[in-house]
């Protein structure tokens, strides 16, 4: 069976660094899973996400997503792959400040022709309305993102990651600025939406209080065997 993520013998070292940041001999994620990837700050969580997103290229090893080997692809091919299959949610949501909420959400569709081909482009309006309705941000669609509250910005970031029905959502500590109450509400909504849109979720965080909500928890220190 084809795995969603299949990492074999991965090694990554930053150019200026003395030793490797990541050395993962094996790591697999299946379709439909929601993974909580735990690691303290500076343990290489974001590096792993960037490798999975095809932005960084490992020096060694095989990184397969949906059966396609990212490490064998050119930069352009990785860009295309990311545009087509992945959704990324940042720690600080990272919305484009000078665009409206709607424009931010549409951006992945407009930037990637392949992402566009995954949806009925004529119904983009409806698709966005549906997602935003679920996220409770329908009323702010035409506002500037800078006018929104933190909670609203976060949900815009989720909508942006989900539009075009990606196979995998990579989330980099998007809940770190929320209080406990909002955190759980937000995660429940995220799980619901991932299920509805058929996306798997890889969620990295150093906050273990939410790990019980995920289908599986992975400690980065368990899979990352750096030999000093």
């Amino acid at each position, binding site marked *: 069976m084809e795995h969603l993520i299949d990492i074999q013998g991965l090694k990554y070292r930053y150019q200026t660094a003395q030793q490797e940041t990541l050395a993962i001999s094996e790591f697999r994620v299946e379709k439909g899973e929601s993974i909580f990837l735990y690691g303290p700050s500076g343990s290489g969580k*974001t*590096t792993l*996400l*960037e490798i999975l*997103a095809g*932005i*960084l290229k490992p020096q060694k090893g095989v990184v397969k997503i949906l059966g396609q080997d990212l490490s064998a692809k050119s*930069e*352009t091919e990785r*860009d*295309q792959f*990311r*545009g*087509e299959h*992945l*959704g*990324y949610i*940042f*720690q*600080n949501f*990272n*919305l*484009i*400040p*000078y*665009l409206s909420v709607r*424009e931010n959400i549409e*951006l*992945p569709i*407009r*930037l*990637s022709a392949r*992402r566009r081909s995954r949806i009925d482009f004529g119904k983009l309006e409806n698709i966005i309305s549906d997602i935003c309705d679920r996220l409770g941000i329908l009323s702010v669609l035409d506002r500037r993102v800078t006018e929104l509250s933190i909670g609203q910005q976060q949900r815009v970031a989720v909508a*942006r*990651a989900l539009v075009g029905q990606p196979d995998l959502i990579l989330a*980099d500590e998007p809940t770190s600025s929320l209080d406990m109450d909002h955190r759980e509400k937000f995660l429940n909504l995220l799980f619901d939406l991932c299920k509805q849109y058929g996306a798997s979720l890889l969620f990295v965080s150093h906050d273990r209080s939410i790990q019980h909500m995920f289908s599986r928890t992975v400690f980065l220190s368990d899979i990352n065997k750096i030999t000093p």
Partner: protein
Amino acid sequence: MVFLNLALKSLKNRMYTSLLTVLAIALSVVLLLAVERARRAAEDGFTQTISQTDLIVGARTGPVELILYTVFNIGNASHNISYTTYQEIKKHPAVEWTIPYSLGDGHHGFRVVGTNLDFFNHYRFRGNSKIELAEGKVFSGLWDVVVGADVAKKLKYKIGDKIVVAHGVTRTEGVHKHDDKPFTIVGLMAATGTALDQSLYVSLEAIEGLHKEPQDEHHGEDDHDHNHHEESQIKIESVTAFFLRTKSRIETLQLQREINTYKDEPLLAIIPGVTLNELWRSLSYLENVLKVISWLVVGIGFMAMLIALTTSLNERRREMAILRAIGGSTQQILFLLIFESTLLTLSGVTLGILVSMAVITVMRPWLEVEFGFYLVGSAFSRSEMIYLAFILLAGVLVGFIPALRAQKISLKDGLSVNT
């Protein structure tokens, strides 16, 4: 479409620096166009100072000297031509008209020129422009004087004023003045933008008469008696030079040869257009200096754009990272940045063109009246079009520098720019 939207909104978000960049480019375009325009106007103004005159004839001297003291009021003739010779050449069958031109006297640093009515009838400059009178009429009596526009303006002369002329063109008091022979201003010439504006015009007889000793019937400057019998007594002996038009251009060269080999006295006939072009070419270093300066300004305009784009890159690292993370390729980011710099250059050039057109429209009458600076010819010459195209191209190329840097940055930073 997505790029236009992104680029426009991103630029709008950085309104202040974007505007400054556009302004810097616009200013350099304005300057380049202005210098180019001024250069062309100067060249045209120079070579068109006199037109339709086929030959200028004077005593034998250098061609440049001849054109300087006839057309530009610079320097003096060492010899005159006898009036008989002038009359003889005037009667030549190839000659259509002539304008006699006698120099010698000065008035507060301006030159007094003796001529006749042919001057007002035939003299042409800048194509087909003829001498117009702003006020009054042309001279008819011996003591009548018509003054050029600059003279009238500088010395605040009006019709009816009495003036006195002196020998030479210096302003010092020591020069012998013809205080006993007051002239009356009968006409004020309209500005021509040529050296014509800086002279006073009297009849040939007046110039000749000035050099004769006062007769008994003259009693100083209170004598307003412009009696005509006096005029007939004066016999014109010489003229300094004369302008000549042939009946057909083909005869010009033949006539020039004939005059240059005139048996009775040594003469020189020059074709003014040829000599003016030679003179202008000898001034071409000035033109090159202007060109170099304006290109330096354009270079600085692009430096400003480069600086503005590069500094804004730092603020925009996060933007780049986001675009990459949500599926934008490095090529798309490269394209976006080049698109932005192209947009900035295009707006700058457009603004520059509009401003220079507006400035020219507004300033044209003032330049013509105040400086005799005529912006002739089409608004945009071929060379200006080429310059503008070059600026656009350079703008796009300059955009590559920050764009390529951005690509490096976005790879190095990955998605980790979190601030």
